[in-house]
């Protein structure tokens, strides 16, 4: 169950035609075609999501008496979350993570790459894009090792470059490391999205901006941005949602040291599987689901308005 990406904005608007059953399938067989997929989605996606609500109002635990016979505790888990300093810490760190690596990092670097690569030589363009894409497609466990090696205290590449041997980046500055890591990891998506969005900017307008002597910044602000505003919004929502749900911080820091990089997904895991508190972690999962739902609804609304 990955963060499976929904279809992406920027593709040509689909022509809405009434569906024609040209092969003569018939509604009965069509429903039969749908059934296996819907059964699997129902069992392994919809049911767990709904079940979270129920587990979230019990004191269900991984071990002990409550594992055998959990009892309903009402909203106790939610009131506990309100006063849980570690949960507040996780929310705050997730906010920093999303703000730093998605909203600022991936967005700006992705746009900068799309904008500059537009006019670069094909060889340069292909090389840079291949590297950025490679960072995106490598398996996350492998990427985690690349960055653990990069940040290593004794022989890490970063310390060799900066001449700061002995700095344990992942322990001293865990959130900075995570933001850098996730910017590196996810920029490809924004780069590709902005590349295709920039193709919709009429070249004639860019040309006239150049003729009247507009600076690069003015061109971006007055010509390019109005054309891609919708893409910026939808892209930001999507990468924020993915980043907030990203489990890879666990691979780099396990949430440590001392909860300093424990984002919400890592916190859920630690509470549920390390602490064994399935009820409480379900309540937090439900809050995450609600947040996801709100972002996704907003995203689809914006998408619909644009087309």
């Amino acid at each position, binding site marked *: 169950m990955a963060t499976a990406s929904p279809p992406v904005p920027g593709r040509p608007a689909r022509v809405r035609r009434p569906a024609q059953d040209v092969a003569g399938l018939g509604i009965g067989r069509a429903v039969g075609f*749908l059934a296996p997929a819907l059964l699997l989605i129902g069992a392994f996606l919809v049911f767990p999501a709904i079940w979270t609500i129920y587990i979230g109002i019990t004191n269900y635990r991984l071990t002990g008496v409550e594992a055998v016979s959990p009892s309903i505790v009402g909203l106790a888990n939610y009131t506990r979350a309100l006063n849980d300093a570690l949960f507040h810490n996780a929310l705050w760190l997730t906010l920093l993570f999303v703000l730093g690596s998605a909203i600022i990092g991936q967005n700006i670097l992705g746009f900068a790459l799309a904008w500059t690569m537009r006019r670069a030589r094909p060889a340069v363009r292909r090389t840079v894009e291949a590297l950025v894409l490679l960072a995106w497609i490598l398996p996350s466990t492998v990427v985690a*090792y690349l960055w653990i090696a990069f940040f290593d205290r004794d022989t890490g*590449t970063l310390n060799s470059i900066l001449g700061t041997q002995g700095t344990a980046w992942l322990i001293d500055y865990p959130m900075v490391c995570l933001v850098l890591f996730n910017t590196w990891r996810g920029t490809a998506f924004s780069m590709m999205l902005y590349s295709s969005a920039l193709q919709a900017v009429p070249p004639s307008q860019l040309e006239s901006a150049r003729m009247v002597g507009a600076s690069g910044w003015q061109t971006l602000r007055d010509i390019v941005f109005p054309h891609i505003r919708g893409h910026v919004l939808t892209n930001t929502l999507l990468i924020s949602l993915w980043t907030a749900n990203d489990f890879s911080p666990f691979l780099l820091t396990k949430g440590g040291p001392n909860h300093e990089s424990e984002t919400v997904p890592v916190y859920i895991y630690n509470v549920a599987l390390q602490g064994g508190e399935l009820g409480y972690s379900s309540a937090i999962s439900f809050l995450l689901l609600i947040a996801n739902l709100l972002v996704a609804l907003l995203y689809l609304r914006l998408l619909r308005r644009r087309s």
Partner: protein
Amino acid sequence: MTPAYVVRRIGFYTVICAITLFFAVPMLWIASAPFDASPGLGVRWPDWTLENFRKTLSHPYALHSMVNSLLICVTTAVAVTAFAALASYALSRVRIPGRDALLYGLLLLSSVVTGTAAMVPIFVMMFQLGLIDSRFGVALVMTGGLLPAAIFILKDFVDAVPKSYEESARVFGASTLQILRDVVLPVARPGLATIMVWAFVNAWGNFLVPFLLIRSIEKQPGAVLLQTFTDEGGSANLAVIPVFSLLFSIPVVVLYLLVNSRYGFRFHGGIKS
């Protein structure tokens, strides 16, 4: 060539170089460490040897975990492709009552119910079903998670297939199943191949689901096993980790290049976990 222009060009290439280095430098380790006689976490010109490969291949679980990964990912990819193909064809061609609401719901599901948000109920559910420590269980969970997005991407492909093909086949008296097998299936092949690779790559890189659901080391796929390589002293086993990382990345990169060269990179949702 005014001086201002030259300065701008130099600035431009400096920025490009900096960005390229930012993306390239962390990857150097996986290119050098596997071939180094005394591999560490640093990047240096290797003392060429293939000894690490021998050590990795003779590791008791390394190859085994690749087989586990293959097993899980092939099952997932085939199931996702088959079920998504059937569903997307039905959704594209037949006006099933409530179709638009269903499509909207699928689109929401694909981004709302993420692995991290659903890990607790999925763990509890699989625990109660007795599917903990089952590779098949892992494949089932991954299939359920990937299907909504897969149906969407494939429906776009099917929508783009001209209906006239099916119409003319029907005029010539082909049965429904013949049309599906001999007309629709071949035309939709690029879409099916893309979705299969997409599902495979997603499942291959997925760490969370097997990490939650699989207990015994001989059933772990590569993504999880890679986290557990330690030497006798308990510290990271640096003879095995770089080589295994390299070998484990190859299928993903090869499949990606294959789809890219055969069908061109189509930008729908992206091949990403």
